[in-house]
């Protein structure tokens, strides 16, 4: 009955052929070609970036200066947006205009139809609540949690600096950044960017075909927790900083206060200041433009570290110390106040060093500087001056003047102390002598300093001959102070020469006839020196440096008030108040009132 069993074999062979064909095809599909793996991951896995919390800023007493608040980026996936949504209601909810909505949608679409991009940035948590509740009505939109800087004291903006969205160049140079990230562009936010930012993490989520999250992929095996940024324990004293900012209201200028025994900056005020919270969140761009373009006072400019002034009379203290160490004078050396050479003021005629500093005698320091430059090493007065200037320049630079302080705040200017090559370029080699450069003697001429250098100089006086690089961070996270801030920098002047000078600085503040009587405190011996920075077209700047107490000093200060005239009238009392506030916690209400009422910004406008 068997009809044809060959046909059974043929059928079995056909079946076998198909089976083999399938296995071969599956081998190519599953083993050879791995593009399907990628396609599958692209479809079913969503890599959600876990943003690390940025390091927090504390002051030296543990008070908060900057922390992070929750904020949300409203993200959009254009391909999932329902074209029928009520655009007006949506714009109302988010708080944008319809034109804005259209522009943002176009931008998102041009980026990608199926990948999400930022629709509206940095929506504060309190605004987000309402949006989140209604977001379900608008498919294609979702929230991405980010953090927003918040500055509870609205203070120390110039020290902390601000953040800005990363540029394409930043992203190219450092793989740690992605589009939409924020990076510190000024202040400590910039110099400590690498420790503050932490490391991003990632969460791998599974999504279904409707883009709904279905849970963690492989039980979170591939997830990476973000590493939070390290906190910064700054050297600032929040209360002192706030007080300084208050005193500097309606004034242009700066206050820098340093703890001499450590080099820690207690306060750094640059005025006019701005509220650091302005440069955060949704209104950042508008506020930034306002601050940069529409404010002629340039509040973003850090005068304490970037404004270069001539040192004025304060420089006489440097001259005195250099001269003493070179033994061209001693404490009892006297010069006649010969006002024919250079002008002077006050009723003195033949001061010794103490008197000359106390009265800020210009002819005295003309003579001192002449002795320093013309030391008689060479018979040619040109060669002699060149040699003298070179020695003098080296001495002055050892005070941290004319050099860049290797601090942790970016962009501190180095100022300028002229040297031989500078004048050679100007006049030609051996074609200049003391008579050409004598204005340096009283801190005028080509000299340039920044306020933080002058505060550091006050610290050098307080320490009798050395300084620690002024710095703003005591510790990063759990770490110790950085080594470079623990190193003593000695000046070339022997510490024994400081006492007679300090004696004079004591007299400047505390003796009748001293130029800085307004800095005097009843219970504390303040030592200081006034300066007046002369300007060609504008009123003089008032400048003052001081430290206190005279024995075992705890604070060194420099104060600059632009266009406020003589140094003793405004800079000195501000320094006095700062010292009193820091050392006693109390202030003199009457003095304070006078300062708070002083206005050197709106002066001109009032007159008009």
């Amino acid at each position, binding site marked *: 009955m068997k009809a044809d069993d060959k046909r059974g074999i043929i059928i079995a062979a056909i079946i076998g052929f*198909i089976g083999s064909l399938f*296995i071969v095809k*599956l081998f190519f599909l599953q*083993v050879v070609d791995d593009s*399907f793996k990628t396609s599958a991951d692209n479809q*079913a896995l969503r890599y959600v970036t876990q943003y690390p919390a940025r390091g927090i800023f504390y002051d030296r007493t543990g008070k908060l200066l900057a922390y992070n608040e929750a904020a949300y980026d409203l993200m959009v996936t254009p391909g999932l947006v329902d074209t029928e949504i009520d655009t007006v209601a949506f714009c109302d909810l988010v708080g944008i205009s319809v034109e804005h909505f259209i522009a943002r949608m176009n931008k998102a679409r041009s980026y990608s139809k199926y990948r999400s991009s930022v629709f509206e940035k940095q929506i504060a948590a309190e605004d987000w609540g309402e949006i989140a509740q209604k977001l379900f009505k608008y498919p294609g939109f979702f929230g991405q949690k980010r953090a927003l800087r918040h500055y509870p004291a609205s203070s120390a903006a110039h020290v902390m600096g601000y953040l800005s969205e990363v540029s394409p160049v930043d992203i190219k140079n450092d793989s740690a950044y992605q589009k939409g990230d924020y990076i510190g562009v000024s202040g400590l936010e910039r110099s400590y960017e690498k420790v503050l930012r932490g490391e991003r993490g990632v969460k791998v989520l599974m999504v279904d075909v409707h883009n709904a999250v279905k849970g963690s992929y492989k039980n979170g095996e591939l997830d990476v927790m973000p590493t939070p940024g390290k906190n910064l324990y700054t050297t600032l004293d929040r209360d002192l900083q706030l007080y300084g900012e208050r005193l500097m209201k309606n004034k242009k200028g700066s206050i820098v206060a340093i703890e001499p025994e450590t080099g820690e900056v207690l306060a750094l005020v640059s005025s006019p200041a701005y509220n650091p919270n302005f440069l955060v969140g949704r209104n950042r761009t508008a506020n930034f433009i306002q601050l940069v373009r529409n404010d002629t006072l340039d509040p973003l400019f850090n005068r304490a570290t970037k404004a270069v002034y001539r040192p004025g009379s304060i420089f006489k203290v440097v001259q005195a110390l250099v001269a003493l160490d070179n033994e061209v004078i001693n404490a009892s050396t006297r010069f006649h106040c010969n006002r024919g050479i250079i002008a002077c003021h006050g009723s003195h005629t033949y001061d010794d060093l103490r008197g000359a500093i106390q009265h800020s005698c210009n002819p005295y320091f003309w003579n001192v500087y002449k002795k320093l430059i013309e030391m008689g090493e060479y018979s040619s007065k040109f060669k002699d001056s060149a040699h003298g200037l070179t020695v003098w320049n080296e001495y002055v630079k050892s005070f941290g003047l004319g050099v860049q302080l290797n601090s942790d705040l970016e962009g501190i200017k180095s100022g300028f102390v002229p040297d031989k090559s500078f004048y050679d370029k100007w006049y030609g080699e051996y074609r200049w002598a003391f008579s050409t450069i004598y204005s340096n003697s009283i801190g005028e001429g080509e000299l340039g300093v920044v306020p933080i250098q002058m505060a550091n100089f006050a610290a050098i006086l307080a320490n009798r001959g050395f300084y620690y690089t002024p710095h703003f961070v005591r510790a990063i996270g759990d770490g110790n102070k950085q080594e470079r801030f623990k190193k003593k920098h000695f000046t070339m002047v022997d510490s024994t020469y400081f006492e007679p000078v300090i004696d004079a600085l004591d007299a400047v503040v505390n003796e009748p006839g001293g130029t800085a009587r307004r800095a005097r405190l009843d219970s504390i011996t303040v030592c200081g020196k006034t300066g007046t920075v002369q300007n060609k077209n504008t009123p003089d700047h008032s400048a003052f440096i001081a430290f206190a107490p005279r024995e075992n000093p705890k604070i060194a200060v420099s104060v600059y008030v632009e266009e406020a005239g003589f140094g003793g009238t405004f800079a000195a009392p501000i320094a006095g108040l700062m010292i009193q506030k820091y050392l006693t916690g109390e202030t003199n209400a009457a003095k304070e009132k006078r300062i708070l009422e002083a206005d050197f910004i709106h002066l001109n406008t009032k007159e008009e």
Partner: protein
Amino acid sequence: MQSQRGNFWQDADWLIILLYTVMVIMGWLNIYAADFNESATSLFDFSQNYGKQIAWIGTAGILAVVILLVDSRFYDNFAYIFHGFFSLLLIAVLIVGSEIKGSQSWLVIGGISIQPAEFAKYGTALALAHYFSAQNADFKKLKTKLYSIVIIGIPVLLIMLQPDPGSTLVYASFALVLYREGMSGNVLLLGVAAALLFVITLFMELIEIPIPLTSTVLQGEYFLILIIAGLASAVLLLFKKRIKYIWKPIVTAALFSMVLVAGVNFIFNEVFEDRHRNRVHGLLGIISDPQGTGYNQHQSKIAIGSGGFTGKGYLQGTQTKFDFVPEQSTDFIFCTVGEEWGFLGTTLVILLFMVLFWRLIYLAERQRSRFARVFGYAVVSIFFFHFLVNVGMTIGLAPVIGIPLPFFSYGGSSLWSFTILLFTFIKLDATRRNVLA
């Protein structure tokens, strides 16, 4: 009534029963994986496919035992009755059936939905086997050809009317049975050729060919007819010397092809409505529609391809579980195998099917009765066709035609129908010695 020599339980082919059991269990595991979600409470959650499938598997087991207990002569004797009964069901479904996804193919009886088309195959297989054994049919006779066409044609026509193209196409598998029983192998080749021509026609009629130097265009189907005529002429010219012997088959083939092209084109454009055309286009994947069938096959390949060599691990699949793959527990169940078990898993499943098919052919060939042999071949042909189209579809070697993968796909009707087919044959095989050759 039972065997005179030996015991039925010894004579039953346990290898087939083992393969069946293994595949049904693997099938259920994959249905569970495809529909798995964390919120599910119990395996017997009857709102989930895997819960229902447990019930279907249980009842299929009972059905298998019942089939084995029934006297094997019953199937032979009642073959036409079965065929008639299922054909009546197919008529009934056209009148009172429920429409799901555009085809009226479900009968709802007491809350349970069944698909008569799945069972009609059984009746057809029995009827065909009965006809061949009883009438001592010979395929050289016209009568045999006609009877075969009638037996197979009745359910084909009825299912076409639903319309359920997938189930209709399954009847093409009977060609293998007829081939085994003496039909010319050329018919198989012609069938394959005609199917290819059919698909080519549908492709061609969508395109227009500009005629050089004129501003008119030639419709693709006319171009196709011209090509056929040209090819035939070329062959005749090349073999001029033997033209006496070859002109008849060549001209016949050419004319037949041209009529087929014209006919397909006419029916497609003049008789069909838009929805029919879209359905056919979609089924064959001619027009790629990212949201339609093209998308389905693409997703299916992604799921299988992403499994790699060893797979993502049981319940670790993302593409199937999260609905990227459509119909993931029914027509596209093979994707779950591919994604979670990898190349090792898919190869194992294919080898299991190969062993099953070859074993069934071996058993069919050892039958003394023509009834049992024809039925055996019907079983292996139906299974093979489902396997061919279903797996071919998921890996991109066959058009997207929705038919289940035997023992793996979710669905009561198909599982019952495959079980009935298989166990009827096991019963026939176990009692083969009782039959006088």
